[in-house]
């Protein structure tokens, strides 16, 4: 999976990638930083859910429970990865890898700062590709194979139903996500995320594209299979959906991929709609603003999870196809008309 990435970086750079050592540093920093964010996010979510539900949340391991993710990871790593007799073992092994791979690869295009903010000419993004938004959509749609293969290979009906739901849900909301981003692409005149953020130096796209932003948020919740759209793993109906039969670090990998997905969707929303690195102060503060905006969106994910009950399956489908899709299409039509007229 890393091979397309490398080819993209050599073939399709919009702004200069910088020398090799810069690329390596960027890759390591992004990877290390965001992978640390995921366990922190798990801790934050459990603490906040506790507050939302008038209880304490994890508070025993380390100060304020901060070491709880470490304890969880140690537990997961040391657990056995079991496979049911009806399962397809090799497929159960690669399914979490697909999930985590697609989530991590999407991180590469997130712009964290203005090109040249820290000296040099290179963009503060893993890679700046001319197909930015499509790259995000491509790996978003490939992420589905992780869920589907995981559920199918488990040889369990709960898992299978969960992965079938994931299939239908992801395909349905992929369309809405694509169309909601299309309005921004038309307004910015580019698919590159760096260009899109650069086009927001006066006004963030959330103002002219507020419909697109809302559609992206709702569809993003569904894409990440988060409550209220967590039908693929609806615990009241399907035990845990596609990951029911997964134990140990295989489950941990699915879990990590899910939280990475939240971070990726927040980052894309922050870059595309909330002005990315733009904010008051000098240019080198860009990454701070970016992370702040991402944090706000991530908190929204948690807040919504604690507030809204899960949708029924038919409600989910009619929301996607009968409300979001026509709205997004209308948004694109209006945007295109306005861009041509003005």
């Amino acid at each position, binding site marked *: 999976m890393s091979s397309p990435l490398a080819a993209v970086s*050599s073939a399709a750079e919009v702004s200069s990638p910088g020398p090799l050592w810069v690329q390596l540093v960027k890759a390591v920093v992004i990877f290390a930083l965001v992978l640390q964010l995921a366990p922190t996010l798990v801790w934050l979510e459990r603490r906040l859910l506790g507050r939302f539900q008038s209880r304490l949340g994890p508070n025993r391991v380390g100060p304020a429970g901060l070491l709880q993710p470490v304890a969880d990871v140690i537990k997961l790593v040391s657990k056995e990865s079991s496979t049911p007799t009806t399962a397809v073992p090799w497929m159960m092994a690669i399914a979490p890898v697909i999930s985590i791979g697609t989530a991590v690869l999407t991180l590469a295009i997130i712009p964290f700062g203005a090109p040249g903010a820290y000296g040099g000419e290179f963009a503060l993004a893993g890679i700046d590709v001319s197909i930015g938004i*499509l790259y995000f959509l491509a790996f978003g749609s*490939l992420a589905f*194979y992780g869920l589907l293969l995981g559920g*199918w290979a488990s040889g369990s009906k709960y898992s299978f139903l969960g992965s079938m739901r994931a*299939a*239908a849900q992801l395909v349905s909301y992929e369309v809405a996500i694509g169309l909601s981003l299309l309005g921004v692409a038309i307004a910015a005149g580019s698919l590159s995320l760096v260009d899109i953020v650069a086009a927001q130096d006066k006004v963030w796209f959330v103002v002219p594209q507020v419909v697109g932003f809302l559609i992206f948020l709702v569809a993003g919740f569904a894409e990440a299979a988060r409550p209220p759209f967590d039908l693929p793993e609806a615990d009241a109906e399907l035990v845990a959906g596609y990951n029911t039969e997964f134990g140990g670090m295989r489950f941990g990998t699915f879990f990590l991929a899910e939280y990475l997905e939240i971070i990726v969707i927040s980052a894309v929303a922050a870059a595309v709609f909330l002005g990315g690195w733009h904010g008051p102060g000098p240019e080198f503060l860009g990454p701070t603003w970016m992370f702040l905006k991402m944090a706000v969106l991530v908190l929204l994910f948690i807040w919504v999870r604690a507030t809204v009950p899960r949708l029924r*399956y038919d409600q989910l489908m009619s929301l996607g196809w009968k409300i979001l899709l026509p709205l997004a299409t209308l948004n694109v039509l209006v945007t295109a008309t306005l861009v041509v007229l003005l």
Partner: protein
Amino acid sequence: MLFEQILFFLAAAGALAGAVGVVVLRNPFFSVLALVGHLLALAVLFLLLRAEFLAAAQVVVYAGAVMVLYVFVVAYVGGIEEPLGPSAGSLRVLGPVFAAALLVEVAIATVGSGLRAVDSAGPDVTAGFGSPQAIGNLLMLRFLIAFEVASYLLLVAAVAAVVLARRRRGLEEAGGERVYQVGRRPERGPQAADPAAAGTGSPGAEPVGEREPADEAGPAEREPATAGTGASRED
């Protein structure tokens, strides 16, 4: 560049292996997955040809949408090691003939045109080649008519799919609001569960009772319905 050459041979081998796998593998589920692998390898080859928009479109449209629906359908009704019927006598003769004809055709096309661009230097492209802007300019200026005709074709297909899906659900439309009844599942059980009943090799392949027993349209035709209205009846 050495790295791109290594990548080319990896992707080419992947594409060939995927294509062979589609035909050779007996389990339809693995066949479909082999096709997915093939399409992904093709996307890498597109990238090496500096056609990044095509590569992304390939992944989004084929691997991400079309194949998802194939996998969806096959996972429900297939995944079974079904013995294929004995191949008809005439097919056994005609098959190799057509395959040989295709091979000759591709060989002529490759030798006639494509090989000139293929050398160790790689394709000679200008900056921005294969970018969304370049593709957009081509589609909107040079190939406008073909582009519009293709989009009408797709529109017709989409409308036809909606019409087909609606006709099968005609009774429900007349009945007004649909209410899910838990007790109805056993009624549909026999027809719906039939394909899965034989499925020893397919993990968890029991349909959930939302399939239409009368499957007039093939898997390909019912794609939009499956993702949209059909799947909405799961619960």
